[in-house]
């Protein structure tokens, strides 16, 4: 709860900073400081809440379980990392730098709500707070038509999915007569299963599939991720997506756990489709940015595993997946914004020109591909473990592994371009020592995640 207040206040501070501070650099500096402070607040939240007894806040609107707070902390850490890596690039997007940071703070507010909600209303508001700043950030590069297109597309699709979500919530309310997701469990089972609940679950599932860009509701993702300013794509594709997943998992784990026989198959098919579409389409991309958009769909397929496996491991799975995926993707985007040409050819010969950049990119790509000793491996491991433990869906596990192998193809294309092809990549902004330091730190994080994942996990 402290974090929610803090992030809102920080957002407002950023807005006022835009009024009083004209220097973009000091605004970014202030933002970095505030993000660090926010991380402090989330840690404070985490340490002051006991592990075993979740605090119920505001008439059970929120419940601060330990893993929720843990997720908050980790995601705030990722945001701090993001700001440290990309703060400089944010300044280049447009005029309203302080507003961009304010919006990111508000997004984090949505994230906190989504990780702790115990009421469908809070979930809805959380999703909206998470989404609306994104529509704006997507369209923030006004000199670029693609950015505007991305914004509009994202907005329309988001609005559409919100409508579906509301419909689902309504039907659920009709079935359970409550918005409280923990009370809902008992009420839906008080007598024979109400078909309204099933329809509601279906609608909510579709709406969340939109938000997390699972096939066939993924159509917006490539265009939006491609069109948005790269810095903001990095944030959208990582922290925000993880938050949507956490919310997805939370609802389905807490409320619909006992109904899983009814929806698991549907979600399994969605998962399979997501993996197939994301991986296969990514293979054919020529632009790395677009490839990363499809790869984020593919990774979403893996994160859906955590939702599919309705067991305790899923929590750990989603947390470790979120952090591993976020850190690696933020890292790759941090490298990407340094380049002028986003196609594969733009990476040609990077290893000769900027060996360090090429090396860290390789590690990030390893992580995304799920090579052992990187965070991505542990992440994939955990979600797979969760599903294998659930036991029913071995076919999906094997399918996913095949798809993971396909993913190696397009991730390694970047590596091949960097190391084995000749060329001189054009760098859009100089790579300073600070950048290098941060990239190495990120890289170290990725490896640390892969070697000692328990540091990033919490008791569930």
């Amino acid at each position, binding site marked *: 709860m402290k974090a*929610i207040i803090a992030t*809102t206040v920080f*957002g*407002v501070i950023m*807005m006022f900073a835009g009024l009083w501070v004209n220097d973009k650099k000091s605004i970014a500096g202030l933002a970095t400081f505030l993000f660090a402070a926010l991380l402090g607040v989330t840690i404070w939240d985490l340490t002051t809440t006991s592990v075993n007894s979740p605090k119920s*806040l*505001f*008439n059970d*609107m*929120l419940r601060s379980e330990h893993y929720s707070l843990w997720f908050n902390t980790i995601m705030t850490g990722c945001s701090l990392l993001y700001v440290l890596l990309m703060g400089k690039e944010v300044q280049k997007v*447009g*005029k*309203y730098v302080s*507003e*961009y940071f*304010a*919006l990111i703070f*508000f997004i984090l*507010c*949505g994230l906190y*709500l989504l990780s702790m909600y115990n*009421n469908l*209303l*809070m979930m809805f*508001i959380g999703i*909206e*707070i998470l989404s*609306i*700043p994104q*529509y*704006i950030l997507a*369209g*923030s590069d*006004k*000199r670029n038509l693609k950015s505007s297109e991305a*914004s509009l597309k994202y907005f329309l699709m988001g609005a559409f999915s919100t409508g579906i979500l509301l419909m689902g919530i309504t*039907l659920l309310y*009709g*079935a359970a007569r409550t918005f409280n997701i923990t009370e809902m469990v008992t009420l839906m089972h008080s007598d024979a299963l*109400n*078909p*309204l609940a*099933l*329809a509601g679950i*279906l609608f909510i599932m579709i709406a969340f599939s939109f938000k997390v860009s699972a096939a066939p509701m993924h159509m917006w993702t490539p265009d939006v991720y491609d069109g948005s300013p790269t810095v903001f794509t990095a944030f959208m594709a990582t922290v925000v997506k993880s938050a949507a997943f956490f919310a997805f998992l939370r609802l389905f784990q807490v409320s619909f756990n006992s109904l899983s026989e009814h929806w698991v198959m549907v979600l399994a098919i969605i998962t399979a489709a997501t993996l197939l579409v994301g991986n296969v389409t990514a293979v054919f991309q020529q632009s790395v940015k677009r490839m990363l958009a499809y790869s984020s769909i593919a990774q979403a397929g893996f994160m859906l595993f955590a939702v599919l496996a309705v067991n305790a491991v899923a929590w750990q799975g989603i947390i470790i997946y979120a952090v591993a995926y976020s850190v690696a993707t933020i890292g790759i985007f941090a490298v990407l914004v340094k380049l002028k040409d986003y196609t594969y050819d733009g990476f040609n010969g990077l290893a000769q020109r900027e060996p360090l950049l090429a090396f860290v990119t390789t590690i990030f790509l390893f992580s995304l591909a799920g090579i052992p000793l990187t965070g991505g491996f542990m992440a994939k491991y955990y979600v797979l473990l969760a599903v294998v433990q659930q036991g029913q869906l071995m076919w999906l596990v094997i399918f996913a592994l095949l798809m993971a192998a396909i993913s190696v193809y397009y991730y390694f294309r970047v590596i091949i371009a960097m190391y084995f092809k000749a060329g001189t990549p054009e760098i859009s902004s100089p790579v300073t020592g600070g950048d290098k330091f941060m990239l190495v730190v990120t890289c170290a994080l990725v490896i640390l995640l892969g070697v000692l994942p328990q540091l990033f996990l919490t008791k569930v």
Partner: protein
Amino acid sequence: MELYDILFWVLSAIAVSCALGVILSRNPVNSVLFLILTFFAISGHYVLMNAQFLAIVNIIVYAGAIMVLFLFVIMLMNLNADVEPQKGQLVQLAGVISGGILFLVVLASIKTAKAEIMDKTSTDIGLISNLGKVLFKEYVLPFEISSVLFLSAMIGAIVIGKKEEVKTSATAKMEHVSE
């Protein structure tokens, strides 16, 4: 048939047919007008449930403000029926089939559901004082936290809507003249 039932069915018929009108009419202006009518019918339902405050707020916010701005934009852009892009036959067919299936699912679930028939005896839940109490006691957090949502929407209006200052010679000249 009591007056209540008559009104209920009439309003429902209006709401549904106008909602259909929204998506079926070719002219966007007509769509918006249909939407306004739909909101009215829904407000009527609120009144029937003795939720007058909700009814009026629905009218103020949607029919009075949002839809007016919508009308504004559409009229200014002068969208016409012929501007609307036509989808291919196949896409239409696919849409109809998938939409129909979804409709069937929902219909089936609602038909078999043991939905409670709405209590016709007037409740006071929709009255403004009760609503206010619920809003500020039970639902105070969602109520307050929505301000973050609106704040970000307002920032968005500024970030997206305001012109980036790209001073070309033409605008500089215009500024000069206006001074």
